[in-house]
């Protein structure tokens, strides 16, 4: 009897060992090691490098002076113009993108329209940088098609009226080209997530179309819309190629300043250059925290 028990025990143990692979600390981590090593080298190291250098003076001692030096008129104005452009294009592109996404989801457009517009949005949101700048020069530059068309047909010379492609307005118009398609891609799933049951329940309870929009649909979508706009903000805040090819440094965006600092120490103060870049990350971090909070809210609402 005793013997029997013992042998059964040993067999069960042996079986368990065979069936269940032994998980050691090492074997668990080996699968993700490449990812962490890679990101350590190419994300963490460069970031830590910039941040640590931003807190050092020329002799390598710890200092906060670099950040204090950011508060000069020139540097603040370049942050400010970047923020203004990002804000403007996020709101304008966000609205246009939302309205178009609304049209292809809730609005009654023919079925084919949706996939066509989503494809074009994919193209346009990826079509940024050098060629986009060229395209807008050909469109709204001094001899651009729209400029000439307005002058010849409608006798409106926009350049005499103070328009300039290399200005705040010009750059905003150019950025919007990739902003609104991105908004379409970001917001369409949220619009798809609106249940028809909500509309019918509202109607059933006596709500008009307007009441439904105001009290149900827009409040539900607001976190997603704001979240989308924050993504657009970041998208334009970090844009360098488009701005550089379009203005060649004419407009003092923060990305252009950082770019110049990489090429050569134009600020005559390496530490200040690093602080400049770290400042951009701080702005982005603040934005991403908002984004995260908004996303949490909308996901919580829409959870089943």
């Amino acid at each position, binding site marked *: 009897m005793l013997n029997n028990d013992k042998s059964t025990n040993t067999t069960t143990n042996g079986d368990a060992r065979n069936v269940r692979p032994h998980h050691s600390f090492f074997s668990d981590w080996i*699968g993700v090691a490449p990812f962490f090593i890679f990101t350590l080298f190419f994300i963490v190291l460069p970031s830590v490098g910039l941040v640590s250098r931003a807190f050092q003076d020329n002799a390598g001692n710890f200092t906060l002076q670099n950040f204090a030096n950011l508060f000069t008129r020139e540097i603040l104005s370049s942050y400010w113009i970047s923020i203004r452009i990002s804000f403007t294009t996020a709101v304008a592109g966000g609205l246009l993108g939302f309205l178009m996404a609304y049209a292809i989801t809730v609005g009654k457009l023919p079925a084919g329209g949706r996939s066509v517009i989503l494809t074009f949005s994919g193209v346009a949101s990826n079509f940024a940088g050098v060629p986009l700048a060229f395209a807008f020069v050909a469109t709204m530059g001094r001899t651009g098609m729209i400029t000439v068309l307005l002058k010849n047909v409608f006798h409106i010379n926009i350049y005499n009226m103070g328009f300039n492609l290399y200005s705040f307005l010009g750059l905003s118009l150019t950025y919007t080209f990739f902003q609104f398609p991105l908004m379409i891609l970001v917001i369409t799933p949220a619009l798809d997530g609106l249940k028809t049951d909500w509309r019918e329940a509202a109607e059933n309870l006596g709500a008009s179309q307007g009441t439904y929009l105001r009290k149900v649909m827009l409040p539900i979508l607001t976190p997603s819309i704001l979240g989308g706009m924050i993504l657009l903000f970041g998208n334009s805040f970090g844009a360098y190629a488009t701005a550089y090819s379009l203005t060649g440094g004419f407009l003092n965006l923060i990305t252009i300043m950082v770019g110049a600092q990489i090429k050569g120490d134009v600020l005559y103060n390496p530490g200040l250059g690093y602080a400049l870049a770290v400042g951009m990350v701080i702005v982005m971090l603040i934005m991403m925290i908002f984004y995260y909070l908004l996303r949490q809210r909308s996901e919580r609402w829409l959870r089943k």
Partner: protein
Amino acid sequence: MKRGSFWSWLWVAIGGLYFFLPLLSTFDFSLRAKKGILTFVAYENIFKDPQFWSTIRFSLVIALFTVFFSILLVVPTVYWIRLRLPQLRMLVEFISMLSYVIPAIVLVFGLIRVFSGSPFYLTNSYFGTYVLLVAAYVVLTLPFSFRAIDTGMSAIDVRSLTEAAQSLGAGWGTILFRVIFPNLKVAILSSVFLTLATVIGEYTMASFIIGLKSFGPYMSLVGQNKTYESSSITIISFLMTWALMMVIQLFNRTKANNGTHSGGR
């Protein structure tokens, strides 16, 4: 109903104009290289330029390496955190999304400063700069390759697939390459083509790390020196982006049609 439809059409029309007018203007401009007549000479000039072909070949090779390494990096990682280390999920997702937070210009700044000296000197050799550029692009495309693969893997039950394969005697290599990868085909391919579309004409990182060898900086050079060719190369670049996006669309459609029997071959 009628009113809703009118507004829908209006917004779509505005968006459509915003999208097509610049392209139309650029195309129109690209045909005016000779006074008075429409000509494709600006395109011929681009296609005759050996630098066009060498830069595009270079960027394509870099893009292919980027694709290769990002898949090799992301698929096993996502697989592993789904299978063994779900507690790391938040951390890996956070790291993957970091390149949204760190703008490309800032990242390239950091990369150049870190890798222009010991102990990790990369910018002193051609090979080193290629490695640096590919790594930079892997980071740049990490947010959406992570998303795509993660979504793809949530659609298949990796744990059961793995356990089923294990119970049939498969080793890790077989599991990964004959079970997991084939079932992720669509997710991987969409991320591949999105990566290609992002990387091939990329300017910011390429211009600082590699310069004129790659296609983005080459386009910029064309724009500085040649008036009409800047338009023709814009159209060419647009068509490339468009073609890559169409391919993605195609994959997604095939997936929708026979989503029930994925894998196979």
